[in-house]
Structures are given as C-alpha cells and as structure tokens.
C-alpha cells in the first residue's frame, strides 16, 4: 500500500443549497485549501450528499488516485455514513475520511460573512491535517438476540409488544403497575370518533396476556441494563405481589373480605376507595391482585389479620414473598414509559385542592367512566347533576412558569368532555381557551360538531376561580373570571363544576429509566429522539427505540402509529440478525500495559478484562463503546481509542490554532 504512505487528499466544500454558500465564500475556501500540502484537489459543489456529489468523490478517487477524503458540509451526525459509504464504494477504507462541520458550527452561527469564511478555512484545514494521520480500520459483525424488551404497558407499550410478537419475536413487557393498560384504561370515550376506550382497549390487553410470544411482567421494574445493541442483558425486578400468580384464580373474594377498605384508589384518581389487597380495576390484566404492603395490617402494621389468606380457596396468598430478579437476553429495547398529568396545585388562582368542585381532567375521566366512582354519572360531590360547567384549557401548558410547551391533546379532550357533558347532563358548558388546536384527521370537524351542540367557547385564559359570591343566588357555586378577549369584556361566570385541562409531563421515574438506558432527555424531561425528522423513533443509543408519550405529548392515534413504527425498527434489526460493531474502539498495547487495572475500574461498559497469564488488560471489542475513559485513566499511555489517536487529535488541534 505504498500509495497510502504518500497521502493524496481530496477536499469537497458543500454549499448545502443556501445553508452554507452565501454566508461562507465556498470558492475562496476551496482556493485556500487547494494550496495546502498533500491536497490533490479541492472542489465546491451545491449538494455534496446528492448522487452527483458522491459520484464526484468516487470518480476523483479512481481517476486522481486519492487516498484520503475530506468533506466540509453539515454535522457528521447527518451524513458521515453517506460519505464513508461513497469512499468505500470507490475501494478505499471508509476511515480514510474526515468531515468538517461548516454548517451547524459555522454558517448557521456566525453573523459576519468574512468571519465565517475564515473560520471555515481553518476548520477544513484542521480536517485535512487530521485525515493525514488516519489509518484503515475494520468493523466486526455480531449476532443479535431475537428478543425485544418493552418498558411500559400503556397503549404504546402494548402495541409495540403485539406488533413485535406478531412478527415472530420473543417479547418481554415490563409494567410497574399491577395491571397493563396505562392511562388509556382510565378513559371513557376517545376523540374524535368517540369510540369507547374500554371496547378497543380491553381486547388488546387480553391479546397481550394470551400471546404466546409475549411474557408479561407486571408489578415489575427494570433494574439493570448491560451490553449493547443486539446483545443487551436486562435484569427485571418482580416486586412481591404477595399473591401467587399461578395459584390465583382471580375470584376476588380476598378483595371483598379485606377489612382495610379506606385507601384512596389511584386508578380512580382518589375519587373512591380500594382495599389493601386489590386489582386497580375490574378488567385488570393480569386479573391477579397485589397486596399494598404499606396499608396491609399484616405487612404494614404487624397486626394479626390474614383474612384474605383465610378465605383464599387456592391458598394463593403468600405474605413471605420476596422480590424476584429475572435476567433476560435482549436484542432491542422499546421505551414506552409515557406521561403523567401535571398537578395544578401550584396554579393557586384555580383553587385546585381548595374547592371540591374543581377537577383535573384525569379526575373527570374517572367521573365520567362507567367503571368510575359514580358509575359514569357526572355528579358533584353533593350528588347533584351540575347545571353549568366550565372547562379550562392550557392549565400548566403554554406557561413559562410551568410547562412552556403545548400539550397537544388538551384542546381535543376538552371538547370531548364538553360533548359528553352536553349529552349526559344537558349542562351548559363553557370552554375557556387561548387557541383551539385541532390539527388531526376529523379533529376540526369534531370542534365544529361541539360548537353545533351549543358549547360556549370563550377566547380567554381564566384569570381566577373563586368561591366569592356576587349574587346571593349563586351561594355555593364557583365563579370563573376571565377576559373574553374577542369582546374585550371581563366575564364572571357562576358554575357548579370546573374541569382543569391539565397538561402532560414525563412520567414519574423516567429520569431513572433514562439513566439505566443511557438516554438523554430534553429540557422538559422527554426522551430525545436521534433525529426529529429522519430518525424520530431511534435514540442515540443503538438498539433502543421510543414509542408514545415518553418522547413528547401525543394523542392515541399518534401513539399507536409510533408504537408500530418503533416495533418496525426493532423487527428490522432482529430480522437482519447481525449488527456491525463500530471500529472506533479502544485498544490496549500489551507491551506498554503495566497491569495496574485503572482502565478496568474506569470502564462503564465492563468491556475490559484482565489477562492473568500475561498480566495485561484486554479489551472486549464487542462491548467497547469507544468512550475513551480507559485512555484517560491509563497512566502508561497503553490504552488509546482507534480513530482518536494522539497524532490525529493533536494534528487537528495544531492546524486549528494556526
């Protein structure tokens, strides 16, 4: 390979349409680079990533005998793969390539054109200096475990599990609550078609339970995740249920007999009570109760009780149950940890928690649900049917003091509430909104329908809700005060009930899951997708995908579509059966290694083992992620990361400083 000893570098400056070119004088950059040592050719072109652009590189390699290539364009996250493939196609090792980012790091963030051009010059020169020291590297192929882990058993997780399992892969579905179903199981009707949530949901729950390809772990949590794409090793903790799942028949006698009956039901949003041994709702899957250890007389208070055990005919109650840990070999992970509703207490002007007739939307869902505390009759706490109800949009959303984003679903579910209220109670309904957001199939039509039904839409964010009475006739009612911005009047509307359409935030615990999986979160706590448009279901961690609200607020149709998409990504990975490991991994020079083991301690991927025979550290190439911790920790400079050698990095920096 004598040709590679004498570097012949080709440099390509991309205009990126109007993204780079007018700000950076690309021709000037090309002229400048052309003059550098070892540069055989420097060209500029409108779109380097296009077919003609790639062909230009391939032809030059063949015709001019290039053995190094630099492309100055966008972020390597965008097109490094594209150009490496082009280089490979021309018969060159793809690692004889370096990219300079003169879009995100130059043209987009620099005001002055001359400054931008100068910065681009030095960045491209640095890339040239670096590529000079590049070495050919090889990748390896590893087989993939044909199994999927789905975290979260709401509609997103259930759908992702079903789609993956239907493709013939083994799925483990982990849900921390006693039953799968998530938020959707709490809903009565769903917008805009008003189909009954239970009717479309419960059969799916049963499908998940009965599917031979799905192993369901409810009342369980993911404890540990190790390994890498195609070869994850996951530990699941099954929390003690104190009920033997195999023996329990789901007869429900234990729940009827349990003497501890006054525990607020989480499933009913605290609007009704449950017992200490319970299933969250009658259609729970699996239909096996759990014992709430905090409230149980035996487990929580050390008292004599055991009534449930006495009445259980199959002897399924087991007060001595301990947590169980299951280890799974997993090829791909789908994260579907969902959302939780914003608690509106801190919006003190709305009096939530102070006024009994101020409800959150989740509470109202239960109040409205056939399996809810009022069997689906919309009743006030005094048992009366409300005559006038106010629904308040954007509670905690679009508010820089709370959640700055639009929660996307509240306008639509608010209008669903309005429709159901009109239908069920005939109550006068006032909706207070800032902007109606109904961008979805049949959504605007639903808005029109609710308008037709006589719901009063007031454009104004509610200033306050008060129990202060202006007119003695309104004693006991609440008054909603807002500016009706379209008429510029301050309206004071006495109502019997208020529904706060609260926004969505990441589910409790998503921070921990993020840490376990190594996923990054945005400023609001949602998981980051790899690319908003081109890789919306993938994450920066290979082999881990996102489904549903854990990535950001979305409605049921979008959630289900995304879940199917995430399953598709997982299936594509599993179907191929092999993954190519990265080449930029650590290497420990056995001649230099002193055997101090500092690198082993520093490695977060457990990718380095100690060879007792030779007394040196050895890298497991399949596990190494190329993070470089070992290189930093090594006192004798034995450890280093391929493609990030001292020569390469220092060469680049030196050129930048010139």
């Amino acid at each position, binding site marked *: 390979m004598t040709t590679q000893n004498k570097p012949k570098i080709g440099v390509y400056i991309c205009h990126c349409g109007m993204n780079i070119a007018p700000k950076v004088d690309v021709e000037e950059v090309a002229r400048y680079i052309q003059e550098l040592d070892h540069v055989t050719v420097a060209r500029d072109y409108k779109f380097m990533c296009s077919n003609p652009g790639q062909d230009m590189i391939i032809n030059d390699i063949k015709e001019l005998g290039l053995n190094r290539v630099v492309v100055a364009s966008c972020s390597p996250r965008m097109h490094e793969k594209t150009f490496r493939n082009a280089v490979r196609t021309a018969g060159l090792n793809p690692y004889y390539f370096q990219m300079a980012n003169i879009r995100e790091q130059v043209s987009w963030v620099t005001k002055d054109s001359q400054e931008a051009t100068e910065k681009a010059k030095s960045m491209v020169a640095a890339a040239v200096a670096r590529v000079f020291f590049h070495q050919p590297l090889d990748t390896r192929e590893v087989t993939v475990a044909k199994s999927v882990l789905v975290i979260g058993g709401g509609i997103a997780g259930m759908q992702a599990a079903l789609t993956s399992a239907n493709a013939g892969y083994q799925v483990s579905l982990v849900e921390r609550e006693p039953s799968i179903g998530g938020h959707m199981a709490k809903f009565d009707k769903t917008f805009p078609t008003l189909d009954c949530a239970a009717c479309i949901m419960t059969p799916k729950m049963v499908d998940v339970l009965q599917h031979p390809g799905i192993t369901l772990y409810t009342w369980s949590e993911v404890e540990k995740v190790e390994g890498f794409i195609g070869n994850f090793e996951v530990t699941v903790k099954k929390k003690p249920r104190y009920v033997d799942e195999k023996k329990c028949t789901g007869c429900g006698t234990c729940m009827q007999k349990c003497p501890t009956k006054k525990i607020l039901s989480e499933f009913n949003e605290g609007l009704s009570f449950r017992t200490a041994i319970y299933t969250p709702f009658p259609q729970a899957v699996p239909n096996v109760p759990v014992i709430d250890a905090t409230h149980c007389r035996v487990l929580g208070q050390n008292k004599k009780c055991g009534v449930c055990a006495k009445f259980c005919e199959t002897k399924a109650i087991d007060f001595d149950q301990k947590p169980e840990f299951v280890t799974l070999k997993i090829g791909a992970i789908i994260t579907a940890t969902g959302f939780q509703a914003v608690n509106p207490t801190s919006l003190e*002007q709305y009096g939530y928690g102070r006024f009994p007739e101020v409800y959150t939307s989740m509470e109202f869902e239960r109040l409205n649900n056939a399996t809810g505390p009022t069997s689906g009759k919309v009743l006030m706490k005094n048992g009366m049917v409300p005559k006038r109800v106010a629904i308040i949009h*954007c509670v905690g959303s*679009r*508010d*820089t*003091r709370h959640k700055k984003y639009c929660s996307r679903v509240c306008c639509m579910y608010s209008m669903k509430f309005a429709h159901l209220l009109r239908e069920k109670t005939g109550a006068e309904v006032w909706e207070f909104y*800032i*902007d109606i957001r109904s961008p979805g199939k049949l959504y605007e039509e639903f808005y029109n329908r609710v308008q037709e039904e006589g719901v009063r839409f007031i*454009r*104004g*964010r*509610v*200033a*306050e809700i008060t129990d202060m009475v202006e007119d003695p006739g309104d004693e006991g009612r609440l008054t909603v*005060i*807002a*500016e*009706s*911005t379209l008429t*510029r009047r*301050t309206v004071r509307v006495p109502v019997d009930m208020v529904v706060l359409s609260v926004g969505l935030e990441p589910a409790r615990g998503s921070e921990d899951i993020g840490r376990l999986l190594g996923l990054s979160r945005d400023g609001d706590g949602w998981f980051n997708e790899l690319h908003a448009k081109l890789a919306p279901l993938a994450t920066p961690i290979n082999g881990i995908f996102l489904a549903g609200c854990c990535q950001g607020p979305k409605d049921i149709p979008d959630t289900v579509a995304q879940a199917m998409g995430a399953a598709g990504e997982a299936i594509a990975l599993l179907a191929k059966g092999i993954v190519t490991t990265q080449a930029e991994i650590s290497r420990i020079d056995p001649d230099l290694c002193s055997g101090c083991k500092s690198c082993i301690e520093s490695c977060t991927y457990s990718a380095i083992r100690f060879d007792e025979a030779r007394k040196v550290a050895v890298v497991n190439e399949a596990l190494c992620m190329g993070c470089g911790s070992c290189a930093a920790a090594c006192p004798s400079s034995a450890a280093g990361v391929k493609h990030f050698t001292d020569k390469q990095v220092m060469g680049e920096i030196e050129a930048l400083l010139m």
Partner: protein
Amino acid sequence: MSQNDTNPFSAIAHLESIKQCIQCGTCSGSCPLADLMDHAPRELFALLREGAFDEVLHSNTPWFCVSCYACMVRCPREIPVTDLMYAFKEVITKQGTAPKNLKMPDMYQAFSHNIKETGKVTESQVMARYGMKHPLDALKNIPLAIKMQMRGRLELKAQKVADPKSITRLFELTEIPKDKP
C-alpha cells in the same frame, strides 16, 4: 394609524418581553379596574407590536393600574405587566400625552408636588392641591375628613423632612429634559 415613526417606548427595560405575548387575556381578567380602561393591558402590547404608538401614548390604561401585581404573577409569558404600566406612564408623562380629561395624572402630580415640597406626603395637602383642579372630588371627601378628624386621624399640618430643600434638590437632580413636542 400612528403618526410616529419611531417607537417612543423603545428605551423601556423589558419591552422586548411583549413580543412573547399570546393575547390570552390573563392580565385583563386579573385586573381590578380593567372595566375603566380604554384598552386591555394586552391590547397595549398588541398596539405597540403593530406600531400604533400614538394609541398607546393617549391610552388611559396605564393610569388605571392599581399596582396589585396580579397580572404580573400570572402572566404565562412572565411579562412584567405592572412594571411596564409604570414605564408607560413615565414615557407618557415625559411626552405630555396623558388624556386631558383624565383625573389620575392630576392626582399623581399633586402627590409628587407634595413630596417635592416637603419630602413627605400629607393626605390633606395632596387633596387640597388636587382639589384646586377638581373641587367636586375634594368636597365629596369632606364628610370622611370630619370623621377622621374626630378620631385624631386627620393631619392638616404638613409632615416635613428636616431639610425639605434637599428633597427638592433630589427632584432637580433627577429631572429628565422634556422631549420636544
């Protein structure tokens, strides 16, 4: 449309924040005296964004701000509405464009004059000065004044700082030159 080409309010701190206003009406809905205002507070922001500076210069809205700060702590864009109302009044006073029939600027003047002369505020003196322009308002308060007097709560003599001239001097040192009409 506006006659002014340049924004007379441009120097106000935090004026940039009004670009964020979503016209939700929380400020007006929270305002105790919104009904007396010719424009809702949020409308002033919209007018400024449209370049209708004269409308804002002649609006009575800032003069009805009671400084209760309810709007400010609720604004979902954290616009310092109350602070802006103060700043608008400062510009309007400087430009001399307060509505002619509005009494509030006269009250402000009487109040400010009292401080300038004595360093302190004596309610009876403020009322006396204001009453020269609006005698009816002053008369309406006489019955109350009598009740106060009976409980030893009406101070007729001016409260004063030791050296009132120093406060007058403070006023002079902080005087801003009036803009050309």
